[in-house]
């Protein structure tokens, strides 16, 4: 036991000499998480700038503009009369969309000729574009529905019949797990967890890599009284504990800041967090014992791009076969399932058991693959990549 403590104490004493490691463990992820909190602080996009291109100029055309303006996600910032100006505003990204009210809109509407209202929207900015089109089409159809309702009523139908005639089949949508369609929940959370994974994986590669490249592995083994097992456990345990603290602060802080109700089981979450840390650490060890200094490159690619593969912003079922397989090895993918199930959904234990077991399996397999080199890394100075 005292040998284990000696290795852990040595690890802590090394910290002041590795300032970049200290930065990676604390200030960098903290600053990153703060910034991401600021990015998503409004949770939903409201009042995005759009323009109205009014070819009609009638009172009724202004009514159509009011319909669009009633949509919560938009704010009409310009009323214009020519298409060239519309293109200019769109391309310069001064507006995300332009609603085109055609010439003779009023006349056609009153004569029942169904005038065509076109929303040109910027789909390069997909988030903004999709929000605006869904919201504005809803608002315009509702406004037009009111007009239809008025027309039916004027033909002497009852209110109920006129209402049904205007919109005979409707969708009553119940949004599950993220009822406010918050982007902090849908996108922000995975980014915070991805930051933690970068810290967990890269710090492991760096602390082990430094021992190898500095040629201090002998000293490390000595502190462990010559036991490789004690040396590795003593090395990694402080960082696993730190991962847990970091997750509590960053993920816990993010969840609390955005008032996400934690519907699941805290014990399951903690076990999942531990498995996530171990899996990330095991991959880091696997990379560094086999690749030495070059492990940092592989680690950056694996942990740095994990968000794209995690299946949160873009579902795994839609990914290319290669990406589906790769994402299966990325711990973030599995831990996001645990978080979704235990924070947003409140799913039963058996649903979260699977991703947690996969994380544990990832840790185990990566650990086993690293094992043949873990002993040698301590004894053979040539593994430092400086041969």
């Amino acid at each position, binding site marked *: 036991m005292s040998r284990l403590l000696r290795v852990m104490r040595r690890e802590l004493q090394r910290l002041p000499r590795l300032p*970049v490691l200290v930065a990676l463990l604390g200030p960098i992820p903290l600053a990153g998480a703060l910034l991401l909190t600021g990015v998503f602080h409004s949770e939903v996009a409201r009042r995005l700038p759009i323009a109205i291109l009014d070819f009609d100029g009638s009172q009724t055309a202004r009514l159509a503009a009011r319909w669009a303006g009633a949509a919560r996600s938009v704010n009409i910032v310009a009323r214009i009369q020519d298409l060239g100006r519309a293109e200019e505003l769109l391309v310069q990204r001064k507006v995300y969309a332009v609603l085109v009210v055609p010439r003779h809109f009023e006349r056609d509407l009153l004569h029942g000729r169904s005038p065509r209202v076109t929303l040109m929207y910027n789909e390069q900015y997909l988030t903004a574009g999709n929000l605006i089109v869904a919201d504005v*089409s809803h608002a315009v159809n509702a406004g037009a529905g009111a007009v239809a309702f008025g027309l039916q009523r004027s033909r002497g139908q009852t209110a109920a019949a006129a209402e049904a005639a205007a919109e005979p089949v409707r969708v009553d949508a119940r949004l599950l797990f993220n009822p406010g369609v918050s982007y902090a929940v849908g*996108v922000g959370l995975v980014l915070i967890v991805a930051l933690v994974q970068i810290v967990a994986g890269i710090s492991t590669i*760096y602390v082990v890599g430094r021992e190898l490249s500095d040629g201090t592995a002998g000293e490390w083994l000595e502190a462990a009284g010559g036991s490789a097992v004690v040396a590795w456990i003593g090395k990694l345990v402080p960082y696993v504990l730190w991962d847990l603290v970091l997750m509590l602060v960053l993920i816990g802080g993010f969840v609390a800041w955005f008032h996400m109700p934690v519907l699941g089981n805290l014990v399951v979450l903690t076990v999942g967090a531990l498995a996530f840390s171990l899996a990330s650490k095991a991959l880091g060890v696997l990379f560094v014992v086999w690749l030495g200094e070059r492990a940092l490159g592989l680690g950056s690619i694996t942990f740095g791009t994990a968000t794209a593969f995690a299946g949160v912003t873009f579902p795994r079922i839609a990914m290319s076969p290669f990406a589906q397989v790769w994402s299966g090895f990325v711990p973030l993918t599995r831990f996001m399932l645990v978080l979704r199930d235990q924070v947003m959904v409140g799913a039963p234990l058996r649903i979260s058991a699977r991703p947690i077991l996969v994380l544990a399996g990832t840790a185990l397999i990566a650990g086993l693959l690293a094992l043949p080199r873990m002993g040698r890394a301590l004894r053979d100075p040539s593994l430092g990549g400086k041969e």
Partner: protein
Amino acid sequence: MSALLRCFRQTLRGIFRQKETLTLLVGASVLYAFFYPTPYLNQVLRDLPVVVVDRDHTALSRQLSRWLDASEAARVSARSNNLPAAQDSVRAGVAGAVVLIPQDFERHVLRREPAYVEAYVDASYLLVYSTAMRAIQGVTGALAAGISVRRLQASALTTHAAVQQAHPVTFVAWPLFNPLAGYASYVVPAVFILILQQTLLIGIGALRVAERREESKHEPLWAQLGGKLGAMILIYAVHAVLMFGVVFSIYGFPMRAPWPDVFLFLVPYFAAVTLLGLAIAELFDRPETSTVALVATSLPAIFASGFSFPAEVQAGWVRAVAVVWPSTWGIRGFLQLAEMGARFDQTLRAWGVLWVQVAVYWSLAWLILRYRRRSLEL
């Protein structure tokens, strides 16, 4: 002038002589360019599994279910009578939504009463949510339109007049620049611009560490900075061709800008990043330090750029921080040029800010390098 050329050649030699800098400044961008887009290659989410709970069992309810299955975005993965079990499959992430067609659905329609379809949609995944809603609303909308038209025909209107009256206003959604709402076309161009920044910042950090070990030549500072700029802009122009020419055409992403415009736009981008890299490189004491310090900055940098969650609704202080990152302006202007088909003069705002950054970071790098040189001479 010959000093500038010497520094230019010296920088290139320095990069190609060492494994670390070669990997970071040349290899990394190539690898990322091919690897990063792989999740998104299918562009859109198709055939999202949806469970239908049909309690009506009529021709109309079956038609709704069939149309949903036929829609591009969704497929009916199961039909069930058990709503809680169906909801469990959404809870477990197996299905994206449950559509409940209540009893008496057809009867309501025939009686000309409003008929409702209930949709339980997983909003924990935003793309699943928007795809499911689009599919369900598209199908019910089509069904509703057919019903309205038939009713109006029954009141002795011609088909044409009935269609027009069923929709007092025809709403046309016209997506611009990324008409298929492709996810790769949305994410990849922005991320490539970011990758160029991050590999360049990290690579310069490693390069400066190596250079400081053998710094002896007393070239003028302006030539040192200029030589570095030249070398980096040259290497990264090649990366730009690889990413936006080769990789874009292999993966089938659109590239709408003429190449001279792209180079013209990217020159101050690469210059600003290089100079920023030179300014912060003094913080790094070993070749790998810059990687450790900067790998976690990619996520905040790209999301602060506003390419995803709109900049207009981010916190004001985030905007203030984002201004200093070249990627914020590089992404903005490059998307305008290459994806939105802007003329060069329409990107002048982003281009202008990049030049301001070049001036600021040049001064900063110059001051820092001069300070360093003086402290060495003492």
